[in-house]
């Protein structure tokens, strides 16, 4: 009996202290850590078309098509397949790929989540995120010293 009363007292304590651990999303945006791996961001200016990201991707999220002179023609991203492993970012020698902190993007069908490099310039999901800014505390761990100004569309 004492045990039951103790249980009841415990829950009542929680009921009365009025604190909640859930938040009102989306009004209260959840904190995302600097290392968080959200949706993929690709910089055409920096890309040297080495295809390492395409090779390392575990499930063919990235597809690159090159012409016979080995110039990049297409960079297609099937973001619906992405498992956010960050391997592409890890292998990229020129920091042309970053996984941003944005996790809020949707599509009505899975086809909505396929983007080519032109569409990637104007995708809605980047919002105003500056990936470098958001990861400032950890910048050293993430971004090597690339050449020139880093430009992430």
């Amino acid at each position: 009996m004492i045990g039951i009363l103790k249980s009841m007292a415990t829950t009542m304590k929680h009921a009365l202290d009025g604190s909640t651990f859930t938040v009102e999303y989306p009004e209260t945006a959840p904190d995302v850590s600097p290392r968080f791996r959200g949706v993929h961001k690709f910089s055409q200016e920096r890309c040297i078309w080495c295809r390492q990201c395409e090779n390392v991707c575990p499930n063919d999220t990235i597809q690159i098509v090159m012409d016979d002179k080995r110039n990049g023609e297409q960079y297609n991203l099937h973001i619906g397949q992405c498992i956010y492993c960050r391997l592409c970012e890890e292998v990229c020698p020129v920091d042309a790929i970053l996984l941003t902190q944005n996790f809020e993007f949707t599509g009505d069908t899975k086809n909505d989540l396929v983007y080519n490099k032109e569409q990637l310039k104007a995708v809605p999901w980047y919002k105003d995120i500056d990936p470098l800014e958001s990861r400032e505390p950890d910048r050293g761990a993430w971004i090597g010293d690339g050449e020139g100004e880093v430009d992430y569309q």
Partner: protein
Amino acid sequence: MSTEIEPRPQDVDVTEDELEALIGDRAIGRDDHLNAPGFVINPDDVQDVLFDLRDEAGFDHLSCLTAQQYQDRYESIYHLKKYVDPTQEVSIVVPTTLDQPVSQSAEPVFRTADWHEREAFDLVGIDYEGHPDPRRILLPETWQGHPLSNDYDQTKPQLVTLSEHENPIQPDHVDSESDTMFLNVGPHHPATHGVLHIKAVLDGETVLDVDPDVGYLHRCEEQMCQQGTYRHQIMPYPDRWDYVSSGLLNEWAYARTAEDLADIEVPEYAQVIRTMGAELCRIASHMLALGTFALDVYGDFTAVFQYAFRDREVVQDILEDLTGQRLMFNYFRLGGVAWDLPEPREEFIAQTRDFLDELPAKVDEYNDLITSNEIFQIRCVDTGILEPEVAKEYGCTGPVARGSGVDIDLRRDDPYGYYENLEWDVVTEDGCDNYSRVLVRMQEVEESAKIIEQCLDLLEEWPEDEREVQANVPRTLKPDADTEVYRAVEGAKGELGIYIRSDGTDKPGRFKIRSPCFHNLSALEQMVQGEYIPDLIASLGSLDIVLGEVDR
């Protein structure tokens, strides 16, 4: 009377020569693995040899059975261990011909071989002679072919229909004379922790027999790993086996196996981070186990579940800061981890310490709320009994085995990482019931907290110029062809083992996962016979299975 007691066979260390002598002529060859000596035997000698190894040499734990197909033969490998000392291992390799893949069943020796062999039959296509229940286990009954065999046509569509002979409205008593009722618990049921289907035979409210039907969440994880490169592409997948929050523990299983295979040294600093991360995962996983078990017993999404979730959330925030994701961490790399602790370090360490400081108060709260509640006690004490001998027979490991008083913990018995150098205890309880399993998990949370505490101390004081998080590992790994290794770590649910055979390329030739949940679940039938339906649900909850890991 003589006070000298004959030592049990499992307490005696067996040397390789003794093994050779024990197996004698029945060994037709040797096929040593990196982790254990391997003996090749004839398909007809399986039971004979395994009986001898179990009774004479004390190998009482059939850890894993790997089946695979080579160009010229099928092969079943029985990975044997001892519960008292899992570092003593031996592999029994049983080759069978391509046109007649029939091998003797090991089920009479080890009960756990039942599900092992069903899986081997299902995926690879080896027939086990004398198996009591030779059905498919992961794939639907009507599946054609064996997906992991070499001649399987993966492009051929499978029509998975209901069995032709099955009449959906036939009377479903076990036999028409009895008064029993057949009840499908699941695959859509509020308490099956995913998509599990339990075929239960009831007499009133009493459970007479259960037959877990798994495989609804089979995602070809083994095959996916066989198609990924060692260096990069496999590591994201272990997170998805036991997906509830023990990602780092699973990653460690792969990391440990692959590092042994490719002979990679891991820097000590990285080992400390790994140890800390893994224990954080264990806390998160045990919190969830506690919450869902309470859910099963309490009956609603009530306070305990929410409190457990709330506390798990704190761990997940820490893990997110450390790894960058909340569940699918992909944080370990061969030869270390992806990153050092997040900057500023002090903040991260302080945040983790805060969590550890608050933990005792939370554990007290759980004790007030759950374990000291009399109704909870009458519900859990002496229900779902799993005797230690039965637990061993069914290959149970982890908190399930420890709740039955089987003192096994690979972190201590087969040390890896940094566990050896830390102060902590293995928790066991002798109750063998649902209540003990809850107690074990709750105490393990406290032990994990101890480990994390010590890791934090180490990390804090680690000299700045020696913080090496990754060894220098070549970009492409190609281990020597036909190197075989089986390694296990203590996952959140028990012994999570991985067998890899390299074939000389940068991808594994065979990748086999030994899932702890799979074998813990197989013991369910022993736990619930004669119990009531509510105890069936509670026992299932106390096993803490994750269907992603059961079905792989």
